Structures are given as structure tokens and as C-alpha cells.
């Protein structure tokens, strides 16, 4: 919702900075932290969206986990995304043991791990959360030296603001720390501490400006509170987009005499805002009794002026009701909004697909998939321009599609075979119907291909070439040959 751009630098790419002044080996943070942090080595293996039946080569990410109450270890979700094996390692003794993910939330980029052997962490001390952070406070980022010693970098909290978290671009509270950090292996997750308490987890670092973005303690607190419940609710959001109302001409035109307020530009279909009756063009004046200024900020009693999405996304819990005071056509209304997390099953094109197989169906060599952003991101950093443009636009404007559009099913490629002669080179074509049936998911497709018409599979495409036919009986007859030739582990995964 906040359009603020953030420099994105994965924390793993801390560049070498030769000749950096040596850090003090121990001080009060080191002594207390050594008994609360563990090295976490995660071996991860992502699926190849160009060949959704295969996994890419495994790679490992290393970070520092923090022991928290209940014998669990807190890390960033990115550290363990698509993990195949997680290993815990004691900093001082290099003893190793394994762990599993107990709860992970990619929206807030946090995960808690559970050691396989509870005895492994015996004698270690859980760390509490520091919830009293203010701008200007000093904090220490912990890293591990190769010899197991804790290295510390002292930094200053320079700003506290709502910013985009990776993977889902959700707007959540960030602490920005100015700290001159060194290149070290295993810096994917790093705890930032103060007086033996955890104030945040480092999730990205910009070496040029020497600033680190931390997942903030209020976000961690929310995640842990939800993770402690039997029914994980996650983070709610109002499902609104808005823009500032600084332009006096706009304010006069809509007759807005209040000092603040933001103009609602979009209401997510099926989201809490829509369900409560908020409309495009409404001006949000206050949320939960807090006045909203022209830029969408409110005065937080702890953090000062920050975006009001902190109230909706972090301070409120799923199921809570927040009262929105809105200005609409000259009148002021109080609208209660029941906060809910995003229903991810309704998302047309997922912003992330992790820890699960990308869905696909292969029919006689024609490969069908459902559109997701990770597919487009296979084209690399410039995917917005390099990836197939129609699919890029479907992803970008998915909120404008009709409510019942469902998933975007498309032909990702053709595996050339006897049955696909003449279709070689066709790729990235959006499917509208198969055998006369509307296709709104791969499940629809799997069902439709069970009903060939006059012995043919008729695949209708939204763009050229318009229609493809396959011989249903020939596909069946050639099935084993295709599976063998292209080493497909399965003809479909749904």
C-alpha cells in the first residue's frame, strides 16, 4: 500500500570490506548472546518453473537463529524457504543437530524452528523481545566469526517506518539501522539485540549506505503471539489502496475541510474494506480513533509518525474490528471493518510459491501451468520487460480481472513429440477453454481433458493461434514414450 521504494539487498550479499577496523571480541552483549544464538544451516532446493517437474540444484543458506521461549528458534522465513534439511550448530562447540520448521509466514518473513532433539538446547537461555525501541537508540547486530566467536557491530536506529517486506511486498514496520557491517559467511539472518533482548532480525543490508532493514520487534511479537495459538491467523490487512490528499485543488473539489485524510483509490475485491462497505473515493480520516494525516500517517505513541497500515496490519489481530472514520460526499461516517488476513487461495497470480510443487499438467507434450510471479521471475532481474508480456500484464493487473476469473492457465511450452507436430515453438499462451469447458484452474483443465470431443482434445487459446487440436487416442498410446523421453516423474501434479 505504501508506495515507498526500498533498496533491496539480500543480506547474503554483504560485500567484502577490506581493512575494516577489528571489532571488540567480547562485551556485555556477547556474553549474554552466546547462550541464546545458534548457527542455522538450511539446505534449500527450489522448483524450476521452466520445468516444473524438476528441482534446481540445492544451495545452502546460513544465518544466526535466536532461541526464544518454548525451546524454539526464530529465523527469517527466507532462510528456510524451500528447505530440504535444516541443521543447528552451536557457536562455541560446533555440535550439530537437526531442526524442522514449526511455523513459517512468508508475508512477514518469519519462521520458528523446533529442534529435533530438545536436549540439544539444554542450558541455553531464551531471549525476550525488546519492545521499547526508539529512533536514536543503539543496537548490536550479532554475527559469527569462523571460530565460533560472536562478532558485534554497534549501530543506531535511524528510522522506524512501515516498508515493504520481501516476497509479498506487505507493508509492515521496519527498523532501519545504520551500522558498518563486515562480510561474513552465514549472514542471511542476523539478530539485533540490546541489553540481552531481541529488537529485530536483519533481513537486508545495503553496503553502500551501510544501512540494515530489520524485521521489527512489534512484527515479531505479533507473529509469535499468532504462532502460539492453535489456529494461526497471521497478519490482517484492510485491502485498500490510497493516495495522499496534499493537493489543495483536490481537497477543495471533494469539499474536504478536515486537516488530514487519505483518498481511497482501490478496494480489494473480497477484502475486509470491501466487505465493510468502503468505496473508492472515500477519504479515511481516522482509524481506531487515531487521526490520519494527508500522507496516511498517524501519531504512534511509541514510534512517532508512521503509516496507519501499522494499525491495520500489525497492531490489530485477525478478527478484531477497527472503526474507520471516513468522509464521503460531504458526510462523515463511522464504518467498522472486521480485519482478516488475505485469503491466498483467491489470489490470481501468487507473488511467491515456496515449500510446494508448482502445479502443472502435461498433455501429449503440451505443458500447462497456472500463472505465478515466480514463473515470470525465471526471466531474471529484468523480468518485467523480458518475460512474456501478456503474462506480465495479467500479473500486474490481476486485481482488475472479473471476480470469477480464477487462475490464469497457460501453455508454458511444448515438448515436441509425434502428437505436437506443427506446434513446436508455441509457448506462453493463455488457455480459455478445453473441449468447450471454461478453464479457471488446472483442476478444471484436468477434468476437461477427460471429455474429448469426437476423439480430439480441443484447446482454445485467448490469442493466436486461437485453437490447437490433439488426437486423444494417440496421446494415450504415446503416453509412456513421452514420459520416458523427457524423464517426467509425473504427467501432472495438482
Amino acid at each position, binding site marked *: 500500500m505504501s508506495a515507498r521504494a526500498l533498496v533491496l539487498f539480500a543480506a547474503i550479499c554483504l560485500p567484502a570490506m577490506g581493512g575494516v577496523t577489528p571489532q571488540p571480541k567480547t562485551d556485555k552483549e556477547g556474553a549474554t548472546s552466546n547462550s541464546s544464538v545458534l548457527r542455522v544451516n538450511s539446505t534449500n532446493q527450489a522448483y524450476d518453473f521452466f520445468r516444473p517437474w524438476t528441482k534446481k540444484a540445492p544451495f545452502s543458506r546460513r544465518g544466526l537463529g535466536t532461541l526464544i521461549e518454548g525451546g524454539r528458534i526464530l529465523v527469517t522465513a527466507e532462510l528456510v524457504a524451500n528447505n530440504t534439511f535444516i541443521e543447528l550448530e552451536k557457536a562455541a562447540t560446533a555440535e550439530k543437530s537437526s531442526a524442522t520448521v514449526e511455523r513459517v509466514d512468508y508475508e512477514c518473513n518469519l519462521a520458528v524452528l523446533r529442534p529435533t532433539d530438545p536436549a540439544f538446547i539444554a542450558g541455553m537461555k531464551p531471549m525476550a523481545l525488546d519492545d521499547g525501541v526508539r529512533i536514536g537508540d543503539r543496537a548490536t547486530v550479532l554475527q559469527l566469526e569462523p571460530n565460533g566467536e560472536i562478532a558485534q557491530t554497534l549501530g543506531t536506529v535511524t528510522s522506524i517506518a512501515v516498508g515493504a517486506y520481501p516476497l509479498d511486498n506487505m507493508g509492515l514496520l521496519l527498523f532501519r539501522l545504520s551500522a558498518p557491517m563486515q562480510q561474513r559467511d552465514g549472514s542471511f539472518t542476523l539478530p539485533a539485540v540490546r541489553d540481552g533482548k531481541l529488537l529485530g532480525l536483519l533481513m537486508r543490508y545495503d553496503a553502500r549506505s551501510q544501512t540494515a532493514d530489520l524485521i521489527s520487534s512489534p512484527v515479531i511479537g505479533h507473529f509469535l503471539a499468532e504462532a502460539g495459538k492453535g489456529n494461526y491467523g497471521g497478519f490482517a490487512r484492510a485491502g485498500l489502496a490510497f493516495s495522499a490528499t496534499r493537493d489543495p485543488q483536490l481537497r477543495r473539489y471533494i469539499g474536504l475541510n478536515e486537516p488530514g485524510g487519505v483518498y481511497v483509490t482501490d478496494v480489494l475485491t473480497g477484502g475486509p474494506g470491501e466487505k465493510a462497505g468502503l468505496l473508492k473515493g472515500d477519504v479515511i480520516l481516522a482509524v481506531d480513533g487515531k487521526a490520519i494525516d494527508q500522507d496516511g500517517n498517524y501519531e504512534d505513541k511509541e514510534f512517532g509518525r508512521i503509516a496507519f497500515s501499522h494499525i491495520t496490519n500489525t497492531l490489530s489481530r485477525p478478527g478484531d474490528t477497527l472503526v474507520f472514520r471516513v468522509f464521503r460526499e460531504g458526510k462523515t461516517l463511522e464504518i467498522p471493518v472486521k480485519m482478516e488476513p488475505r485469503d491466498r487461495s483467491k489470489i490470481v497470480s501468487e507473488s511467491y510459491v515456496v515449500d510446494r510443487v508448482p502445479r502443472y499438467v502435461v498433455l501429449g507434450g503440451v505443458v500447462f501451468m497456472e500463472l505465478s510471479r515466480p514463473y515470470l521471475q525465471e526471466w531474471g532481474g529484468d523480468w518485467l520487460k523480458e518475460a512474456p508480456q501478456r503474462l506480465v500484464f495479467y500479473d500486474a493487473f490481476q486485481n482488475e480481472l472479473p471476480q470469477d476469473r480464477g487462475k490464469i492457465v497457460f501453455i508454458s511450452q511444448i515438448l515436441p513429440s509425434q502428437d505436437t507436430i506443427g506446434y513446436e515453438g508455441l509457448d506462453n499462451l493463455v488457455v480459455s477453454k478445453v473441449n468447450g469447458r471454461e478453464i479457471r484452474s488446472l483442476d478444471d483443465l484436468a477434468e476437461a481433458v477427460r471429455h474429448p470431443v469426437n476423439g480430439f482434445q480441443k484447446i482454445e487459446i485467448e490469442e493466436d493461434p486461437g485453437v490447437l*487440436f490433439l488426437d486423444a487416442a494417440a496421446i494415450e498410446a504415446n503416453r509412456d514414450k513421452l514420459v520416458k523421453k523427457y524423464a517426467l516423474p509425473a504427467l501432472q501434479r495438482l
Partner: protein
Amino acid sequence: MFRFLMIAALGAGIAQATPVARSLVRIEATSQEPDYKAPWNPGEVSGGVGAGFIIGGNRIMTNAHVVSNAKFLTVSKEGNPKPRPARVLFIAHDCDLALLTVDESGFFKGTTPLELGGIPAIESVVSVYGYPIGGSRLSVTQGIVSRIDFQTYTHSGMDSHLTVQIDAAINPGNSGGPVMQGGKVVGVAFQGYSGDVAQNVGYMIPTPVIRRFLKDVEDGHYDRYVDLALSYQTLFNPAARAALGLKDDDLGVLVGSVYGGGSSDGIVRPGDVLTAIDGLPISGDATIPMDDDSVPLAEVVERKFKGDEVSLDVVRDGKPAKLKIPLSDPWPFNLHSNVYDEDPRFVVFGGLIFQPVDQNFMTAHEPEDLRLRYMFDFFIEDKIYKDHPEIVVLSGILADPVNAYANDFRHAIVDEINGTKIKRLADVAAEFAKPADYYVIKMAGAGRPVVLERKAVEEARQRILSRYAVTREQNL
């Protein structure tokens, strides 16, 4: 080096070179490229050199790109370097040809008009005449015909026509020069590749294209090419052939899309199988037999004119049918063509610049905005032209207090002004001309409206015009 080549050519075939020298002209053009970022400006002046040759009727044939956007033209005859002012009679940007004349009496005296020949055979030798890299004396190169095929004509960037590929070097300055064989013109040299892409690949416009241009302008007006305005795919897949009720004879192509507003709209349907065009059978690879050769089926339409008819044999729902199609302009495809000899169109209001999007705009602005790129790229396929015959965009902002908060809307597409749907640039001018207290501009997609108060716009008007040296507030 050039002199050596020329002497060699004269020595080798003096009987052939002499008449060409008497018909060849060197064209110098002073042109002005419009400025799509400050569209009221006359644009940057540049000069260029090309070649041309005299044909009957005191006319000079050259490439359109030699004389595009020209403000002043001179031609000089080979061996008589005095430049004489010339003017454009006809220009065809879609096939990169132009006809010039010189009004000064006596200019054509002593010149020999060149005659047009046929399509040269593959492997036969041709000679290219012109002024490569700007020299002032005739240069001749020789090569053989390598390939005859359809190619995109880069001048418009969108049209493709029959093209002959030769292995003689074609360099800047060769453009517009004749390619000769047996004393007759067999083509006009027009484009090639830079050496780091492909070596010894040059292209010429063959005589069917030249003759079509000459015939089109006989009525005193150039009408452009006509087009079927549909897409088709090859039909090699046996299952597809069987499903469509076709014989296993490798004939026919399947219609994918029929574009609205084009010649075939309402006559041909997606899913029809085209089996013959004007009686010529269409092979599964979309070619037809013509002139003892196999050429793309489009060649039939290529040789026709606006208002002509073409007949199609189709198989529709398994049954044969005959269709007659009256041929017309390829609108809305023209959106993706480069535009020449036209001043950019725009409206300036409250310091906001509004422009219709076309290929020139996209080239000049290289917009990142996804919605704008979508509407431009899929203008035809997704029938964007139905709601937006012109895509009007807020293209720039002349910063002033009146528009201090409009910065986020650069490259946004104008959807409505004061409740009126904006279909063309003229609609923008019309809405701003109506008296209103507020001008409320709604952009496509989510976003707040841009609001301008009339009083504020009026106060700012002279200030903006003089501060930014805006000499013209609109060109519709």
C-alpha cells in the same frame, strides 16, 4: 578505394555504366526530426545524402527515408554537381519509396530515363549505384541475388513486402540508388545490416513493389497498401487437420484472429481454414504458386489496391465456402508504424502535456509504465482501439504551482475528463475548452483524479508559456 572500384566498373562494362550515370542523381536532404518531448518545438535539423534515378515523366525515384521530414531538398546530376532545388511529388512510407521532381527547366534535358525490369533470378549478377558514405562521385558495387523473400521494411518498422537480398555492399548513401541488370532497373537499394550483425547482406525493393507504387499514384494520390487484417497459422498437425475436416493434402491455413475495422472483419471468422486465394491453392506453410515460384499468400493482396476485391476459398465448420473481401487500409495496425512528415499532436493545459500514443511517442519516451506498454502492445490483439481509438497520455508536466501534485501521473492514460470518456486527443481539447470551475481528470486504473481549478489554470497560463517557451498550446 572507391575510385578504384569505379574505374574497374567503367573498364569492365562501359556500355552498361554510361546510361546509368546519365540517369543517376545525388540527393541532399535537410530534414527536421520532430521533438516528441517538447512537441511545440520545430525539432532538430540534420542533413543526409542519398541516391535517386530518373524515370519517365521528369520524375526521380528514391527511397522515402531519404526525403522523410525534409524541409529542403536538392538534387545534382552525376557529372554536373550543381545542386538544384527539388520537391516531393509522392511519398509512400509503407514501402519506402518516393517520387521527386525538379521544377527548374532544362534539368531533365540530356538525361536518360531508366526502365524497370523484372525480378532477377537467384545467383544472377546485379550492380548497385549510389553515393555510399556520402561521397560526391558515383560508386558501383556488384553482387549476386542471394534470396527473394518477404522482409520487414525498417522505415515504417511494421510493413513487410517482397524483398531481394543481394551480397553487394549497401551502405548509407546507397539508399534510393538503382540496382541494375541487363540495362534495366531491377530494384532500389534500401537497407542492410551493420557489419557486426551480418556481412554482405544488402536488400533492394524489387520491381513489383515499385510498379505498385507507380500505379497507386496514377490518380494523383497515394493510398497505401491494403491488408486482409487477419492472422493465420500453418496446419501441419494431423490431428488439427482431421478435427477441422480437412484432407491429408497439406493444403490450407487456419485463421487465428480477424482484426476489427480491417478488410476481413465480419466476413472471415477465426477458425476458418483458408484453402485458396484468388483461385491459387494455399499450401500448409501459407505459400501460393505465383510467377513460377512459391511466395507468401499475402503477395496476392500486395499487388492490389484500395477498393479491389480478393476472393477466398475457405472451409468453415467442415464445409467449403467462397468469400469476397473488399480491401481497405490496415488500420488499426498503423499505430505501430513509424510516422514521418507529421508534426506531433498535443494539448498543453495547466502545464500538463497530453499526447496521443504512437510508435514515435514510444520511441522518444521509452515509457516504463506497464499499463501504457500494455495498451500500446496489445492495441490490436485486445481491441483496445474500441474504447481508445487514440490512447491519450499525460506525457509530461511543465512544473508549476498549479500542477505541483500531478507528478505521480506522468505516462498515465487519460480515461475521463469531467465525466466525458476520452477517445481521442480532440476530446481532451474539447473538454478543456468548456467552462467549468474544476477540470477533473480521471486516469485509467486505480488512482485519485487530477483536479485543476479553472482560476488557477488561467493564472498560470502565461507564466507557464513564457517560462517554458511553449510557442503553441495545441496541435490537434
